[in-house]
């Protein structure tokens, strides 16, 4: 069985305490709101995409549980400098990792540091916390102007 400390690994606790890329960007051209009504998690994601379609800068604000804050923090680190066209694939990789069978090892090569969140698979009620930021990012880059939810 998965241990709690595998979910709340040092990396997650650390990103929760000191989230990276936290706050509003000075200049941004995409943004979106995300909301998880079940636990009241609220996120806002800001993205600045340059003419070459590269995510030049990305940040988030909001409040939520450790999983949602750490996931958003890790996501901003993972996406900064990547091209927008790569986003759907990364989104799918992440989504797959957190919903895959427990026995399946996360693809660390594709996911990098994001793999620390693989543990949420063991905690079905917490998967939404981990994916909220990704859905919010999707709304932002698609300019959908809809509040992202995880359903």
């Amino acid at each position: 069985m998965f241990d709690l400390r595998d979910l709340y690994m040092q990396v997650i606790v650390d990103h929760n305490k000191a989230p990276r890329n936290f706050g509003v960007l000075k200049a941004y051209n995409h943004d979106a709101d995300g909301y998880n009504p079940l636990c009241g998690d609220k996120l806002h994601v800001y993205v600045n995409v340059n003419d070459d379609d590269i995510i030049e800068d990305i940040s988030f604000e909001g409040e939520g549980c450790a999983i949602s804050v750490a996931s958003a923090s890790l996501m901003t680190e993972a996406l900064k400098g990547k091209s927008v066209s790569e986003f759907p694939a990364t989104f799918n990789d992440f989504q797959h990792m957190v919903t895959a069978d427990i026995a399946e090892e996360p693809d660390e090569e594709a996911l990098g540091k994001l793999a620390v969140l693989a543990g949420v698979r063991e905690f079905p009620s917490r998967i939404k916390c981990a994916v909220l930021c990704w859905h919010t990012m999707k709304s932002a880059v698609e300019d959908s102007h809809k509040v992202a939810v995880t359903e």
Partner: protein
Amino acid sequence: MFEIEKIRGDFPILTQQVYGKQLAYLDNAATTQKPQSVIDAISHYYECDNSNVHRGVHALSERATAEYEGARKIIAAFFNARSEREVIFTRGTTEAINLIATSWGSANIKAGDEILITHMEHHSNIVPWQMLCERTGAVLKVAPINDDGELIIEAFDELLSERTKLVGAVHMSNALGTINPIADIIRKAHAVGAKTLIDGAQAAAHLAVDVQALDVDFYVTSAHKMYGPTGIGVVIGKENILAAMPPYQGGGDMIRMVTFEKSEYNDLPYKFEAGTPHISGAIGFGKAIEYIENIGFDAIGKREKELLAYATAKAEAFEGLRQIGTAKEKACVLSFVLDSVHPHDLGTIVDREGVAIRAGHHCAMPVMQFFKVPATARASFSVYNTESEIDALFAALKTAQDIFA
């Protein structure tokens, strides 16, 4: 004599382990567990008596009808209703309030009228009134609460006027544990000519309720928070008011005579019970009430006070814990936040220690907004809980703090 081991033995679910730890079920405000007598009554109904009520002339239907109506008698006596005609089965508290807001509301509320509720209501005693106000142009007024989570009576008095047509108040708050002074509220509402609805979803398993002594117009509750099954609850309403209300839903059972030109409605309580009811649910509800009566409210109240006092003392001594809801009159609920751990993380961590609590907004988002928290963790106690389960909770809280230290 209150024998905790005997009481715990009545609830088969409590002996189990989760994640290799002894279960400590402290989520009783969400739903209570069911004693063997309730489980047996429901199985017995399906094994021996299952059939439809009020229609068959055969033996099974007669038995099912007798048991279903027998449950109504038990419930009527428990709440001291004037007669069984005042006991209307619904799916639960939520449907009960919707029934009143729709049926009574559509016949009695017009533009400019006011509905007065409190800031500590469950969403089910907010949203149906908002919907009614939207339909009719009536205005929803909200009586404020103080920092302890108590109704501010002076402010309530000021909001009450001859424009107020209905006062809706929760008897015991699920998010805070606050017990409202409902006798006072009802008397004051009646003084301005308003009707009263008391949401007894939390209270009915913990406090004795006498609808005649209270003179309440509508008292509503859910069986599943009273050791009974889900999917069944009641409106206890004054007969003269119910008789004057239009039906809520149309269909079988609620009519006496149907032609294509016109239908004649059935008498109370059937006028409000369209369709095949939740027969086994009603039977289980009756048994659950007998279970409560066998222990008795004196013993229940005494025991639950002890548990809350024990938990509250531990909470006060726990560093970094802030209680949400510190009313003088409260019961069974310890709602709190920790300064270093989000309630949702807390819920997950204590769950792995075998402790079941609720983390979230408890369907009372305005309460969260008032206390400026996104959510709280809530432990809620029942007559079968023990001090050692509360110890397990606080040990688990310590584990959570250590993880985030």
